[in-house]
């Protein structure tokens, strides 16, 4: 094995498929779209270089402001709630004996289902003519317009969608934390119990510090996932009413595929790329573990 790893040809052969895949499917399109972000490009005529025009337009675009606001809200909401809910669920499930696998599967299930189908399902649940409001109406209560309300800095539909996203993806965080927790040696816990720790104390003093690196990884995944979040929003509200629930990815889609402003859409994509890189960098900084 050691010999093989020293052979440069062998390394090259092993790396080549992934390298080619990454280059042609990822890096070249990324570079292309960064180039397009400096152009007027409608896919019908050749791209025309316009310098920073698209980026200047981004600054005065009201929908861009809304989508940026919503994306940041989403980022913070999902990082915080996924961390808390994921940890609580992981902590609970590693401590129960009966039905652990059952609950694990139930909680993880939404992760493997299609977001489009789930989006539709939740749209029906929150629709004023079906779902929750009909049940409330039976008890004489009038439910709010879950996916249509427009009041407030962060509108109600955004909270609803963020809740659905939490429900869908919390299983992912939970699995990551559970994997890390089950890797912690039981002797540590036994020692802590002998020293008189309660379960809660051992969770705080043993579990938490030891899963810190996984928190970083899970949070990076969350951050990237929530920044490029698209499917639930597109299926539940399509960014409406009147762009109130637009996020960066849906705004990009509208500009690119509805108005054929590929240059402008690429500029939004570039902003998204920079944001993702920045968040990963920050999260990795925050959760850097020097002693492992």
């Amino acid at each position, binding site marked *: 094995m*050691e010999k093989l790893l*020293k052979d440069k040809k062998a390394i090259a052969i092993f790396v080549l498929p992934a390298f080619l895949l990454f280059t042609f*499917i*990822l890096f070249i399109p990324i570079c292309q779209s960064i180039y397009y972000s400096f152009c007027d490009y409608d896919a019908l005529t050749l791209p025309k270089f316009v310098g920073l025009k698209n980026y200047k337009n981004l600054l005065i675009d009201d929908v861009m402001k809304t989508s940026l606001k919503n994306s940041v809200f989403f980022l913070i909401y999902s990082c915080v709630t996924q961390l808390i809910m994921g940890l609580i669920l992981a902590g609970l499930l590693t401590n129960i004996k009966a039905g652990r696998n059952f609950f694990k599967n139930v909680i993880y299930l939404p992760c493997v289902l299609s977001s489009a189908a789930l989006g539709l399902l939740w749209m029906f649940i929150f629709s004023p003519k079906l779902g929750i409001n009909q049940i409330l109406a039976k008890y004489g209560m009038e439910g709010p317009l879950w996916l249509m309300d427009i009041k407030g800095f962060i509108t109600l539909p955004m909270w609803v969608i963020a809740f659905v996203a939490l429900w869908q993806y919390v299983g992912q965080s939970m699995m990551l934390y559970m994997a890390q927790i089950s890797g912690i040696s039981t002797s540590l816990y036994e020692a802590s119990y002998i020293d008189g720790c309660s379960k809660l104390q051992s969770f705080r003093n043993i579990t938490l510090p030891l899963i810190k690196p996984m928190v970083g990884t899970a949070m990076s995944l969350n951050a990237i996932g929530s920044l490029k979040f698209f499917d639930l929003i597109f299926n539940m509200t399509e960014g409406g009413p009147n762009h109130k629930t637009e996020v960066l990815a849906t705004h990009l889609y509208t500009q*690119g*595929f509805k108005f054929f*402003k590929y240059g402008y859409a690429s500029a939004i*994509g570039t902003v998204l790329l920079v944001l993702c890189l920045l968040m990963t960098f920050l999260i*990795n900084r925050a959760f850097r573990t020097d002693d492992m």
Partner: protein
Amino acid sequence: MAQLSAKCIFQKGVIMMKKKVISLLLTVAVTASLLAGCGGSGAAAGGAASGAADSGAAADAGSGSGGEVEEITWMFWDDLNATEDLITKGYKDVIDRFNKDYEGKYHVTPITTNLEEYYTKLNALVASGETPDVFIVSPGPNLTTYVDPGVAADLTPYLDDEWKNSFSSEAVFAQQTYDGKIYAVPLNIAAACVFYNKEMFEEAGASVPKTWDELIDACKKIKEKGHNPITISAGTAWCLSMLVGYLCDREGVDLAKINAGEEKWNNPKTIDAVNKMVELSEYFQPTAAGDTNDVATAGLYSGDAAILIQGSWAIGQINGENPDFEEKCGVFQFPEIPGGNDPNRVIAKSDSLAMSAKTKHPEAAIALMKYFTDDTAQKYTAEVGGKIPVTKVEYDADKAPAQLADVMDIFTNASSTFGFYNESLISTEAGSTFDDNMVAVYLGEKTPEQAFDDMDAFYAANK
């Protein structure tokens, strides 16, 4: 990295490095998948289309005809086989008839998408130099997108007298004509009218309104009976903006002058029109803000609301979903605003066919277009599809949906037609901006003045 011994791999620093590299790669991969999605779709769409063309060619070869067959493509925004839409089913018949009658001479292969992806895919095909020989397009800025860069062919030379005279009037070409040249052929016309529930009107003692005040009065009476007077969709923004379009036209707004930059959007007539929309919004169903077009239309045929302002294409949907409603459903023309513009103007919209300017088989393409406007196809359009035919064809009114007769009455008595406002502005995006601003006014986020100032700002920035 490779030179490090196996032991070293376990050292902290390397772990850190690896982690960093992995997380960076992960970030890039995840982000890029989004970007790549945009870049890749063109190629994918092109691939799919050429795939379709291949299979078409193969099928043709299988039927035993030699190499003389002229193969053309026709692009459309609905699946011909999976659809429930009656108009689409009619188009499928046309394609089948064409392929059968011209067997061994011409053969057409349909390229179909869903409506949402239609223009994305069409543009990808145009960009890759594989423009379909014949493609469907909405008149207005959509068609202009293909006329300006020379993608769509000038059809004037092909419109011989016989073909041209078969159309009901020259006016049907109005929206397809640029500098006196016709760039697309209309297939059918839908007119925007007001559909209403006769039973509810009777119950409330309301009469069919002719003027704006009568409409408000009818709404008031229906509301007093505990029904929703109007069902409309602001979730699908063009539905609301269609109402504003009608109000603007009744008020006498000169859209041509606004588009030419000679008049401002923010003027007393547009403000009056939008204020009337706000006045009427008191009678909308409570969920109008988020209801989609389909949900709003369902509001009429399921008996939730009394009035629906919609294009006549909704007839197929209404009668298809609830056949019992056909006899209860009445149609009237959008009411007059006294002292305003001519009340006999009607919003109309047509599906049109354009031909690629680079097609190698113009004769085959024109032959196909003629099949779409021949008597069989046009008769079907009226009797089964419930849309207004574009030719002088005689159809059996008893077979056609009950509402079509009323729509035909309104359409034939129309002094002139105009397009949807959002499809009659300087660009598709301008139309969308108009829609958004009207919804914003309805939601109370903007005053009419602010909304039209924003329209003026958009026009100034996108001349």
